[in-house]
């Protein structure tokens, strides 16, 4: 009995874990190395001895705080506009839906700098909408913190829309149908059935969206410019520090890395529930 048991146990792992083909293992390992090595480089070159003084420099915390604020506001904006957009794409049949879906993903493939130029041409002082905003309300968006939020939201929203649309498509429509047969309108169904059903998807999308917004550089520097405390987010601070002070740039990068990894890890355990 006992021997048979051991034998079975010994045989089992071999069956449960078939050999990983080298043709997959090798590129997978290389891929991992390629992604991790640059981070190792940052850690290796970090000026650990002067780290405390560098962290205490006033500009550092200002940029970090601005980054966290703008990324969070941009994510809120994306959730507010992106979830309904994702619902529209997933649940409503309308002509040109494929085109709309393609348009939504354009910022994903557009170089962010181009996004920044495009934003200037629309929301800039002489832009299509911007000139009207300026003339009517005296509001100009470039070079303001609101401009940073706008630039980040533009670049990050597709991440949210795609994640939420995916969640909606994966959700069982029978719950919504059941709600409808019980007399719930589309709005009630959306708020009471659909939204709770796809909440993990929305959370995952929001986290991705937030991470993308936090790292945004090209659209921000093009549309919102660079001014400490107002539009200089961490990535901009890193880029400018790189011009004169490499160790400072490394320190700023480390902070950004630490904060984003910490928050992503924290949120993952809580909401996203990775297997």
């Amino acid at each position: 009995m006992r021997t048979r048991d051991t034998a079975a146990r010994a045989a089992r792992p071999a069956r449960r874990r078939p050999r990983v083909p080298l043709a997959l293992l090798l590129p997978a390992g290389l891929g991992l190395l390629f992604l991790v090595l640059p981070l190792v480089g940052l850690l290796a070159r970090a000026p650990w001895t002067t780290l405390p003084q560098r962290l205490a420099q006033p500009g550092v915390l200002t940029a970090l705080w601005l980054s966290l604020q703008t990324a969070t506001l941009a994510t809120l904006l994306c959730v507010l506009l992106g979830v309904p957009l994702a619902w529209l794409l997933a649940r409503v049949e309308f002509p040109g839906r494929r085109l709309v879906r393609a348009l939504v993903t354009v910022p994903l493939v557009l170089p962010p700098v181009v996004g920044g130029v495009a934003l200037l041409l629309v929301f800039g002082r002489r832009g299509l909408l911007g000139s009207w905003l300026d003339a009517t309300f005296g509001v100009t968006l470039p070079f303001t913190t609101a401009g940073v939020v706008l630039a980040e939201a533009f670049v990050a929203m597709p991440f949210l829309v795609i994640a939420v649309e995916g969640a909606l498509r994966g959700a069982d429509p029978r719950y919504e149908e059941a709600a409808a047969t019980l007399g719930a309108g589309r709005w009630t169904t959306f708020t009471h059935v659909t939204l709770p059903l796809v909440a993990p998807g929305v959370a995952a999308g929001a986290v991705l969206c937030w991470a993308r917004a936090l790292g945004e550089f090209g659209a921000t520097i093009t549309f919102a410019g660079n001014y400490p405390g107002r539009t200089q987010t961490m990535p901009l601070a890193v880029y400018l520090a790189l011009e004169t002070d490499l160790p400072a740039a490394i320190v700023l990068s480390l902070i950004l890395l630490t904060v984003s990894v910490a928050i992503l890890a924290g949120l993952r355990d809580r909401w996203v529930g990775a297997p």
Partner: protein
Amino acid sequence: MTVRWIRAALAGVAALTLGLAGCGGDDAPAGTAGGGRVTVFAAASLTETFTRLGRDFEAAHPGTRVTFNFAGSSALATQISQGAPADVFAAASPATMKTVTGAGEAAASPVTLARNQLVIAVPRGNPRQIAGLPDLTRPGAKVALCAEQVPCGAAARTALDAAGVRLTPATLEQDVKGALAKVKLGEVDAALVYRTDARAAASDVDAIEFAESDRAINDYPIVVLKRAGDPATARAFVDHVRSDAGRAVLTAAGFQPPQA
């Protein structure tokens, strides 16, 4: 279907990698044995003049090839000290040049190729009637400056201090072309840029000269770098920039000759 996709993607990646590697291999022995290639890292404010000088140099020395990397001087200095393959470096300020020579990257001591000074660039027609630095502090006036890390920003700081003008700019751009672009787009009312940049964009902007710019004149140093693949051609290019013909191109663009 999926397999075919993956195969196609893999082939694409492989081709791309090989292609890029090929490029690298092509560039690496830059100008060995009669290659005659010169890679010049030059301040953004030299974009128009150096492009022209490069073409002239290639025409005068058949078989040579001059390629450029234009950006803010400080960014270029960082790239060079991180091992970027540059043969010649032309900066917009001696301070920035010093970070390169100080790191032992230069093959000789730098020489000054020209001088430049700041003007106030305003949208064409000067709609806000800006006449000098104090006008930039008017309520609602939006001004773009270069970040102080780059030479045009350091010069702007000196000029503003000399004029006793305290100014909160709308943005601190990473190079002079960035500041100028914000004027061209009409997003700011004025920017402090080099006279040469304003002149190169004369169809879009007007240049307002101001007295205090005399206090912040930038010398532009140029040097052949130690890692130059073909030092002889690199030196020849520097000589061409400093020749009478080269000086004529620079002066026509608004640069001043170096101080004797």
